[in-house]
């Protein structure tokens, strides 16, 4: 396997040619906050939190989908990148409804962790307070659209690993939302195997296990 050498914040590291830049960052001991990235799933570069400055590139590039090449010089912690990352997280908070204090994911939430990582002590953009819904039609799990950041991890895990392809994104722009089946209530989608993988990979409290699940009899898939 060909190995390339590149510089991350001045540190020389060697990674396989074509590996994502995130791997080079890891080799250099740099960890950036990520929300859409999952090591077992294909990258989509949706959250833009892993943007880095690549010498010679006209604009920052997402480290999760950019291939490592010989002689690249990366900067991961410039004032512009820091400011951009913080703004991205603020926009995620402002775009949905994220009352951490009463969220079941409080203390175990990657969005919350990212906010702490980027030093978000307040949200400087106006909250949208969108009127969203909770889909509680599934007997085991619950989808809370208020807390969905559209990272698409659930879409990918259901498609790439479980092979059920229950999830998809509908509409565009600020109205984009997660849908089950052909925009049906989750509980009405026959292809769902109730495996729970989407719940396992959800970075926030958008997909969670229901509190009121009876232990027995197990409803089953």
């Amino acid at each position: 396997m060909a190995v390339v050498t590149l510089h991350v914040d001045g540190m020389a590291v060697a990674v396989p040619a074509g590996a994502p830049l995130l791997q080079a960052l890891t080799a250099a001991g740099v960890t950036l906050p990520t929300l859409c990235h999952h090591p077992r799933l294909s990258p989509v570069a949706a959250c833009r939190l892993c943007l880095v400055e690549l010498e010679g590139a006209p604009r920052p590039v997402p480290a999760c989908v950019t291939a490592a090449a010989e002689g690249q010089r990366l900067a991961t912690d410039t004032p512009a990148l820091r400011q951009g990352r913080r703004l991205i997280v603020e926009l995620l908070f402002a775009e949905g409804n994220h009352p951490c204090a009463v969220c079941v994911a409080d203390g175990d939430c990657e969005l919350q962790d990212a906010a702490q990582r980027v030093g978000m002590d307040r949200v400087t953009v106006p909250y949208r307070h969108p009127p969203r819904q909770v889909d509680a039609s599934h007997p085991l799990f619950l989808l809370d659209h208020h807390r969905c950041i559209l990272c698409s991890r659930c879409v990918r895990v259901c498609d790439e690993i479980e092979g059920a392809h229950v999830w998809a994104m509908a509409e565009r722009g600020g109205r984009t939302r997660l849908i089950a089946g052909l925009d049906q209530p989750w509980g009405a989608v026959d292809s769902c195997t109730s495996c729970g993988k989407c719940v396992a990979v959800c970075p926030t409290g958008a997909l969670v296990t229901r509190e009121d699940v009876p232990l027995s009899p197990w409803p089953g898939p």
Partner: protein
Amino acid sequence: MARTITIDPVTRLEGHARITLQVDDRGALVAARFHVTELRGFETFCEGRPFSEMPMLTARICGICPVSHQLCAARTGDKLLAVQPPATARGLRQLLNLAQICQSHALSFFYLSSADVLLGWTDDPDRRGIFGLIAADPELARAGIRLRQFGQGVIERLAGRRIHPSWVVPGGVRSALTPATRAWILEHLPEARRTAALALERFKALLDGRLQRDARRFGDLPSLFMALVAADGSWACSDGALRIVDSQGVIVADRLSEDAMPSMIDEAVEPWTYLRFPYLRARGRIDGHYRVGPLARLNVCSGIGTPWADREWREFRQRAGAPVVTSSFAYHHARLVEIVACLEGIARLVDDDSLCQGRVRARAALNANEAIGVSEAPRGTLFHHYVVDDDGLITRINLIIATGQNNRAMNLALEAVAREELPWPIGPGVELPAQLLNRLEAAIRCYDPCLSCSTHAAGAMALQVQLRGADGQVWADDRRP
């Protein structure tokens, strides 16, 4: 000269409020009003959420008694699941509630009301409050702070957090009592009991002395009283049935299920306050007002069920010399008696290790679409009423809070104090007694109102303040949209 006397803000309450006295042309008192000027809107943002989230969500209504909302929400959740929590879970919930009532009463008595009760009415305003008590009686102040700490310590060790724990769930609780927590409670109970004894001793000495007149007459008013009682009629804070007595001590309703609440209670609204006025439908808006809380609980029950608290309860009733105690001031004494009841209740619950083992949660899927839960919060009877869709999402919710149920009584208590304190009719240029404002505030503080809880409801009601002359003409009108 018609005038309005305003106290704004009223201090040492949980929340923000204003008092006005309205005086007519002839100098007579027209009305005393307690204006609650804050709005929360909790009911609206509970809509659309899963009912299983309610213990956590409604707990955020208040930082003083989150546990009370959790217990009531969980009780309502039990009924939606149609399950009976295991005996261990019921005992643990009761233990949590006793600790909650204990810490809240300690806060009310020592931090907020001790100055009214122990330091005298005309004291320097700067020295009123807990700092005044620390200066005047450091031993009692320290003990009072430690007592609240004990109650909070039990909550923290049992439920994981001092404020807003998420331990109580529909169907039960999340974990059993640990031997370490049980040992901690047993270790700290004696000190808490000594504090309760000390406070009762100081307070009763004042009742026999300087506070003799206040004990009988301060904010004295007839009303109905409502509280939960156990199956044998004794004091209850969790499982029980509703009992209502009148100011003569006659039981007018007994063994009522909380399910009767919607047909029994209605809520009136007034344009000048965000706080609603619940009343018994059968008796109408004015005559149907009732009081809840420590005084009501001690008035409706036929005993406490533990030896020391029973002695204190009998003495409390005997001191009034009447079938029931009607003075607002008696709420303070009632709180101390209830602290004793809580401490003895806690001791009894942790006495054996049954709470350390066994099943703590009954599980089921949704089995009902509507349920009403009830619990005794420190300030009185608390109702949660949920209607959910087939997926368990809240479609309609109503919360009836203790402070709201005491609303009419608080206004009447203000009126009683104002009549007592001022030389009616008031002529132009009358000198207001220096202690008037303190005593009006103190009348409200008897009820230890929690305005955060009680104005949780969203509505289109505007705040309006009017000054009316004797002929009904509006002299001044101030309204907030």
